[in-house]
């Protein structure tokens, strides 16, 4: 009996990959544990090994094939001494040429058509040149450009230099800027965060990368008690220009200690600025603004968004002001407010709602402190209904705050109570089915939108 060897999942977020190289050929004997192929994931090239002993009956996917979905059969393994029956047609699909595997554009653009992109924050100039970039590349470019512009800017964190970043955000920075400005730290978050704050007091402009924001909890005292408050406590003498950045929120299947959204936590703190972009152009423009800002900025990224592609202005000096929302889609019937990855839930919901004749306006806060509540109030005065969407827990959430603002400032315009969609009020479970239930979903948003529209 031939067993199928399937395209393996080699990282928590991998959905497809490239078969970079076969290390075995048809007819080769293999042992369990032997390396069969090199496979390129979104982050790295990994070796893939055999799970069983046997003989390679057939390679089903040619070397160099891209975009192979996880669990696609890539080879057939036959028992030792067995031959693959040459008559079994179904088992030997013709090998497609490597070229035909290539998707038209490897990165689906999630940017809406230009007409819908009328933005409160950034008015897109006609004639601006755009290029497709992932959020990952946009963040790297933002840091590189600011490091070229200002010698005082440096990057510090775990695995940022030699390893090129645990999530490959700092790719290439060590090569360009050297060890003085791209600094690998020991695993000592509380220590290096405090050290970063001191360096900012000393006149530098640190970018502190947390491998993920879960680990910033080790250091939250320095972020809040030292970075956020010193300007005030010193009567304005001593500011702290520093950026704390890294992935925040749920990743895939990494369970309670590695999957949580800190947006509301940091948004609570006077003295901090807090940013959580969704799209790559905003990630770039806001990170550049954050680095130039004279205040401590908490910059919340998202691992699942890192690989998504968007149109990003090609210009070197593209910045987005902190504290301005962006409208992704205009609509008359209700306002859906979100930020970060929640925006993709909101945009998906808007598509579904449109089929039901409900026109949703999508407001992306982009910044949580200062928050562009004016944009939200203005939109709700038009639509009279509002749903908020976030990954974080429901108690003391961003949605709770917006509900209060709307009650205060737009009470007479509201035709329904504001609905908050949030993560479930539990630690993140590991099991696939429970994780799905714990996360805020597009269906949750659609249901809430219909509820506030009384549909």
């Amino acid at each position: 009996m031939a067993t199928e060897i399937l395209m393996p999942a080699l990282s928590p977020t991998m959905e497809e990959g490239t078969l970079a190289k076969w290390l075995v050929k048809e007819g080769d004997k293999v042992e369990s544990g032997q390396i069969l192929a090199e496979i390129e994931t979104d982050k790295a090239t990994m070796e893939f090994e055999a799970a069983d002993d046997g003989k390679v009956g057939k390679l089903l996917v040619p070397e160099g094939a891209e975009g192979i979905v996880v669990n696609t059969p890539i080879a057939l393994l036959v028992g030792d001494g067995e031959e693959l029956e040459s008559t079994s047609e179904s088992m030997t699909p013709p090998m497609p040429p490597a070229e035909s595997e290539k998707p038209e554009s490897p990165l689906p653009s999630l940017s809406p058509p230009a007409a819908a992109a009328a933005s409160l924050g950034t008015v897109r100039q006609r004639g601006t040149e755009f290029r497709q970039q992932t959020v990952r590349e946009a963040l790297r470019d933002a840091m590189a450009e600011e490091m070229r512009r200002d010698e005082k800017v440096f990057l510090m964190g775990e695995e940022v230099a030699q390893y090129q970043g645990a999530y490959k955000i700092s790719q290439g920075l060590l090569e360009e800027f050297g060890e003085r400005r791209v600094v690998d730290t020991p695993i000592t978050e509380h220590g290096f965060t405090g050290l970063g704050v001191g360096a900012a007091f000393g006149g530098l402009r640190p970018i502190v990368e947390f491998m993920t924001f879960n680990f910033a909890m080790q250091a939250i005292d320095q972020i809040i008690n030292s970075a956020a408050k010193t300007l005030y406590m010193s009567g304005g003498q001593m500011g702290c220009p520093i950026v704390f950045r890294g992935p925040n929120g749920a990743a895939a299947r990494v369970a309670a200690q590695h999957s949580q959204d800190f947006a509301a936590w940091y948004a609570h703190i006077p003295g901090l600025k807090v940013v959580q972009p969704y799209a790559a152009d905003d990630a770039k423009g806001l990170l550049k603004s954050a680095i130039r800002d004279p205040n401590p900025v908490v910059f919340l990224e998202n691992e699942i968004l890192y690989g998504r592609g968007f149109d990003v202005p090609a210009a070197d000096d593209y910045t987005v002001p902190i504290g301005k929302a962006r409208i992704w889609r205009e609509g008359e019937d209700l306002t859906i407010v979100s930020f970060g990855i929640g925006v993709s839930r909101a945009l998906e919901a808007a598509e579904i709602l449109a089929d039901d004749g409900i026109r949703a306006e999508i407001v992306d806060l982009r910044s949580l402190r200062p928050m562009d509540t004016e944009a939200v109030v203005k939109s709700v005065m038009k639509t009279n209904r509002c749903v908020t969407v976030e990954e974080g827990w429901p108690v003391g959430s961003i949605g709770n705050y917006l509900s209060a603002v709307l009650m205060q400032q737009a009470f007479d315009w509201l035709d329904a109570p504001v609905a908050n969609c949030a993560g479930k009020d539990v630690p993140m479970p590991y099991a696939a089915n429970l994780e799905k239930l714990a996360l805020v979903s597009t269906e949750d948003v659609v249901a809430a939108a219909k509820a506030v529209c009384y549909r």
Partner: protein
Amino acid sequence: MPARKKSSGPKATVDEMLLYYRRMLLIRRFEEKAGQLYGMGLIGGFCHLYIGQEAVVVGLEASAREGDKRITAYRDHGHMLACGMDANGVMAELTGRADGYSRGKGGSMHMFSREKDFYGGHGIVGAQVPIGAGLAFSDKYKGNDSVTFVYFGDGAANQGQVYETFNMASLWQLPVVFVIENNQYAMGTSVSRASSTPDLYTRGASFGIEGETVDGMNVVAVRDAGAKAAKHARSGAGPYILEMKTYRYRGHSMSDPAKYRTREEVQGVRSTRDPIDQARDMLVEAGHADQDSLKSIDQEIKAEVNEAAEFSRTSPEPDPSELWTDVYAA
């Protein structure tokens, strides 16, 4: 292939040696299987394999006794198997199923067993160290003579809370054995790039904690060092540090291509210091095992691991109502 050193030095009886061999082999095969299930998408998220480090937990568990406690980080499958937790239950937790140790809610990094005094399974580097001292505090408080084994990595050894813990543990003479599993890398960072001094076992010196370095690839050496350290802690003399020199063969987690070291480096350790090969050689050289008996052990272990894999695939997903349980104790 370079020759392994002839086994000399610490000795164990035949039965002991066979037991260690089996336990190490079980961990190795279990981890290989877990890696395969990950590739098939049955295990998700982070999965940190213990392959290469088997002698550390197997040797130390040989010096533990009833009532002793253990706690570690996310690279925890080996610790669980070594302290007698059931392979089926561990594998089913890896696949996130109802029959897993945490009923599917914790996953690879977060597993616990009260019954076996295994206190996790912790995802935050260094966090288990003070918690482990707290377990020891509870034993001292109750007046029994149990010891807690607190495992952490070379990378974790740089976390501040480790030193806060060293101070308290020494100040209050807590019955704890700190086990630094120095596998030479913290993710992609070698010890020399992260630590100002290379000898991690001396890190307790300024707190008055004795320490020693141990060949963590030699299960008997580990066991003997563990017995000495546990005796020290049990006697009321306070904490003790063991720095286990070991090596992880695989990447940090399943998604680490491990480009920070050469294939030759890994191969070199595998072919000269492998803990299981060493144990096998000791058995064969002393005439206590031949190819046949080794093969039958191999097959038994393979069968046990295959059963665990099958169990973990057929165990049901947790009931959706589990989402809301265990947030608060009644």
